[in-house]
């Protein structure tokens, strides 16, 4: 990223360049062979790779850059067009209802690409769970304006999407309990009211849960969490903690 580009701000309708020299990224639109800004924010020019014959991508940043050091300089990830859940985005959700065939959750936050886990490279994000706690505890999370469950996007985890192995042996009560915080990946925008999530990956599943006694539990295996005070174990579909 070019130094000083962050200071340059665009407002909607501002002409950014021609499509002959740039390609349009998130936060922009094309009109009459020109790229215009669609939202207000800093202009980000992602330089083209020298090897590939591609144009630089011009986009308007929507997410707040946390700080310059942790900001990924070359993101190969899919561009983020808005703050809504899309297919393949990783979300944190709270379980609101557990039924025989499915669990209903309400989406608390859509994780940034930078905050999302990288399954192939776990050492890349060693503090992902700290990150989760930070996101859930910060009331001023700019992506989470809504506060009540009615204002949040609802999602379903179907029985067959809970885990990869022994799909037909899944008992939903032994996977999730109401109030658990679950990390899931969106597999479909679903119908008019629900998104569909999956937890069928090692890094997906319950990340925070309270025991029957009300204590915060720690994970002991992929299907068990334990209460540090009473020592009792409870069954969950646990996300790999690191």
């Amino acid at each position, binding site marked *: 990223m070019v130094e000083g580009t962050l200071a340059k701000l665009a407002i909607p*309708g501002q002409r950014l360049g021609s499509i002959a020299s740039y390609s349009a990224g998130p936060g922009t639109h094309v009109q009459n062979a020109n790229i215009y800004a669609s939202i207000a924010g800093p202009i980000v020019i992602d330089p083209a790779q020298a090897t590939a014959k591609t144009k630089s991508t011009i986009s308007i940043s929507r997410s707040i850059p946390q700080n310059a050091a942790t900001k990924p300089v070359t993101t190969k990830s899919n561009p983020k067009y808005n*703050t*809504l859940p899309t297919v393949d985005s990783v979300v944190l959700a709270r379980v609101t209802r557990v039924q025989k065939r499915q669990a209903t959750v309400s989406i608390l936050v859509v994780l940034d690409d930078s905050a999302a886990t990288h399954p192939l490279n776990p050492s890349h994000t060693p503090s992902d769970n700290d990150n989760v706690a930070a996101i859930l505890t910060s009331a001023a999370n700019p992506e989470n304006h809504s506060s009540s469950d009615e204002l*949040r996007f609802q999602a379903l985890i179907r029985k067959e999407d809970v885990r990869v192995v022994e799909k037909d042996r899944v008992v939903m009560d032994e996977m999730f309990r109401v109030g658990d915080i679950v990390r899931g990946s969106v597999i479909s925008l679903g119908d008019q009211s629900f998104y569909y999530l999956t937890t069928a990956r090692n890094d997906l599943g319950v990340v925070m849960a309270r025991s029957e006694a009300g204590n915060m539990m720690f994970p002991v295996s992929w299907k068990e969490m334990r209460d540090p005070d009473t020592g009792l174990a409870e069954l969950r579909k646990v996300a790999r903690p690191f």
Partner: protein
Amino acid sequence: METVKTKDSAPGAATRPQRQRQSNELRKIFLKTGLIPSASGSSYLEFEPSPALAAARSTPKSLIPPSSALKLACTVHGPKPLPRSATFSPNLVLTTHVKYAPFAARKRKGHIRDASERDLGVHLETALRGVIVAERWPKSGLDITITIIEAEDDRWWGDAPDSHDAPWGMMNVLAGCITAASAAIADARIDCLDLVAGGVAAIVSDGDDAAPRLVLDCDPAEHWSILSACVVAYMPSRDEITELWLKGDGSKAVLSADDKRLGNEALLDGAVDAARGAHTVLAEAVRESAERYAGLALGGPAR
């Protein structure tokens, strides 16, 4: 100040405020974003009060304020999930609500939205629908709520109702709503094609023998009668109009000899000019919003 003949010059009576601006000069606009922290986007807009108000305050002749100037607050909530009863929508579903505060106008407004308020809401929705890039926000809704704290007068309060009456103040209110909503939407970072600005022009007559003339951003209290008025929602960078509302009959109005345009054409051009003026204020307010947002990013606590 130009000398204008007025009907009501009885000694001791309150006098009608008079336009002291040039015919193409707008009132100053105060516009600020992000004043309501619980909303995802918000704005507050105020028009400059007429100088007659300051004059009446320093030398009061009557307890009734001579004119009123628009003040309104706009909040944007969303994008948020659609209600359970709604069907699947691949686009953003826009809802607009315009409500006068009970004390906003000289005649008290009820708590339930009346026909004129619903009408304003529909006009505002049309104006905004053409600007928002709705397909980027599937399955979500956007609520735009405008509270009018002080409305514009439809005519000078001392005038008796007559045949020239129409809710002229509503047109100024709509222009203000469009500009404020545009700022609030940009503040909420919803994708837009451009910043849409509202502008009003009117053909007014200041006496039986005075020739009708075109004025931008007219305050209805300042004129003896308004023949026709026009409000547009205009996107300057694309030179497109998303909403056009014309009231009255401007076709018979003969403008000055050197102006060959028809009445309605002149009105439309005037309204677009007024919207261009409002756009400069709007652009500055949105830039301020973006700076605040970027400043939050750079100066905010590191997590």
